[in-house]
């Protein structure tokens, strides 16, 4: 089943790029060029995710979000904004959106975040105690990690990183998603700080294994999964 996305964005070029990219990724995209139309479409409620521009003619993005949440529509919303400064990001997140992306952003980043919020919406309510990916197993209670019977010793920070990855098996996670998700750190150091973490983790998990689990996704980030 294809997933439906509502894109509320007034800048036609940006909208073209986003909807083009999403269609390529086999999403169905509906577009609205202003807040009023966007709100009208969104109240239909059949979308898996809404991408909402912060600055819109007529009805402002935050007003659209407030109206949606006021009407009891819980569809995940990702806000796009040219207002990069951190205070707007906080405002966006506290006003009921699920994620907040600052323009300009990499399409891969948007894609990863769309998949993340959609999955979060369908996530099982029961807390898991064991996370798995292929023959890699993480026990959250005993805090043991093993792969095919081989015990893997991880430092606390590596444990948390792997836990986050295992909660998002087969999803692309970007560097900024990792920084925010694992450490709640909202600044991209711009250097390869995260890559070093991943290469250490990879050494412990995949070294000597026939089937690597931790994959680098070019231009985007990382993915853990059995599929190469």
């Amino acid at each position: 089943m294809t997933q439906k996305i509502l894109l509320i964005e007034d800048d036609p070029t940006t909208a073209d790029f986003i909807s083009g990219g999403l269609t390529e990724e086999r999403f169905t995209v509906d577009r609205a060029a202003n807040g009023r139309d966007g709100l009208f479409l969104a109240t239909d409620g059949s979308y898996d995710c809404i991408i909402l521009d912060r600055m819109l003619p007529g009805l402002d993005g935050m007003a659209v979000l407030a109206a949606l949440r006021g009407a009891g529509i819980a569809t995940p919303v990702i806000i796009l904004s040219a207002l990069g400064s951190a205070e707007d990001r906080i405002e966006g997140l506290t006003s009921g959106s699920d994620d907040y992306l600052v323009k300009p952003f990499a399409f891969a980043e948007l894609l990863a975040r769309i998949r993340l919020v959609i999955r979060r919406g369908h996530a099982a309510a029961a807390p898991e105690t064991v996370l798995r990916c292929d023959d890699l197993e993480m026990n959250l209670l005993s805090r043991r990690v093993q792969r095919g019977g081989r015990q893997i010793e991880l430092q606390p920070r590596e444990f948390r990183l792997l836990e986050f990855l295992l909660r998002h098996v087969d999803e692309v996670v970007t560097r900024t998603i990792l920084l925010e998700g694992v450490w709640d750190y909202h600044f991209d150091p711009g250097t390869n700080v995260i890559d070093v973490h991943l290469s250490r983790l990879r050494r412990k998990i995949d070294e000597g294994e026939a089937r690597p689990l931790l994959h680098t996704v070019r231009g985007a980030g990382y993915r853990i999964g059995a599929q190469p």
Partner: protein
Amino acid sequence: MNLRSTTVRFAGLVFLFQIIAGAVLLFGLGALLRSQSRDDAIRAAETMRADLLGTYAEGGTPALTTAIEMRTHRRIERSAVLFLSDARGQARAGNLARVPLGLVPTRTYVLMKVARPGHAAAEAMFLRAARLRDGGMLVTGTVVESERQLFAQLERATMLALILSILFAGFAAFVSTRLILDRLRATVATLGSVRRGDMSRRVPRDGASDAFGLLEDEVNLTLDRVEALNAELKLATDALAHDLKSPLTRLQFALESVARTVTEPAAQGAVDQALAESERLLVMIETALSITRAEAGIGRENFTPTNLAEMLETIVEIYAPMVEDEGRAIILDVAEPVEVPIHPQLMDQAIGNLVDNTLKYGAGTITLSLAQRGGCTIISVADEGQGIPADQRIEALSRFTRLDHARRGWGAGLGLSLVQAVAHLHGGSVELRDCAPGLKVAILLDSAPLDTPLRDTGPRGRSTRSLSDGRKYLDG
């Protein structure tokens, strides 16, 4: 107590004027009464003397003796002193026993203490003697003993009143100083909280149109203007951000879609480089905007109480593998957990910038430390590299400047400016210090209470000031 302080001077002046006014009133009144009473006494005595000398001129000694006896016996003028002696000094008539010792005929009245017959004690009286033709002596005068006692009492009362007036003057000086301080305190507190970011605060007005009212009005009008300018700046930077970023977004999308389809290795490299450059452009715009907005105090509404120790721990954890790969170490030096209201994202970025800087330009172990000293929270990042020479430290904090040895590197020289802007946003400052070897960059967050004197936060004096007056924190 500072004697040069205006309030102390004012209190002193109020005190002095109160004392002078009290003294003039009390002593002046006493002197006036005294001279009035003296004049009255002399006038009465003089009238009597003129009368008696008239009688003497007409009827000679016998008539005068009779007149004096009549007057003394009538006892109408109780305070009148009359005495007539013959040439040998023997009493002929009057209410004195003899001519008081030392009294000689003069043109003026003298004050003497003389005991009258039938009176227990000596009394004060004004006396004047006159030699008669027959060699006798006429003494006239007025007893002023009761007045003298009254004045003595008045003097005691005056002293008491003066002592009281000194106390009252001290109290008045204290109260008036307090009134001034109280009137100013609201203004100072308002300015303090505006400086700390609550741009909407205004001095409460009670409608008084005195000098303080004028000051309060002017302060409020100035704050209105500052707030309006700030709002304009926010709008302008938002617009700039939007105008610059929308084309950058399209550029990035275009490059990305090319990157997805291009297969030729040479083209792939070029596209990757173009992507990296556009990203770098974005970071620069973003950082420049962050600096401008932070310097304008925008973002204080998002301050959240944050555990700084945990925050530094996270940063150490994030950077540790990278630092270790460089063959260096990163350690945490936290004496006690500190929770202060900060802008977490911007502080993350500021400290991240500092760690990045030492990774790029520094050497040796990186130490992140957190300490509290003298109402000040100090977050610092230190390394063991070559540091920054003292004469280049102020320059290092300026926007878009990079010191020579860093000129080859990545970035636009905004890192330390951002750190400084973030410190200013939090009402603090940044210091660069030589650790011999190494550089220590400290972010000082002022957690001073409202009534401490306001620091100069002018954009010009700031960097030099923070370098000089902050040193005491680091030297300790």
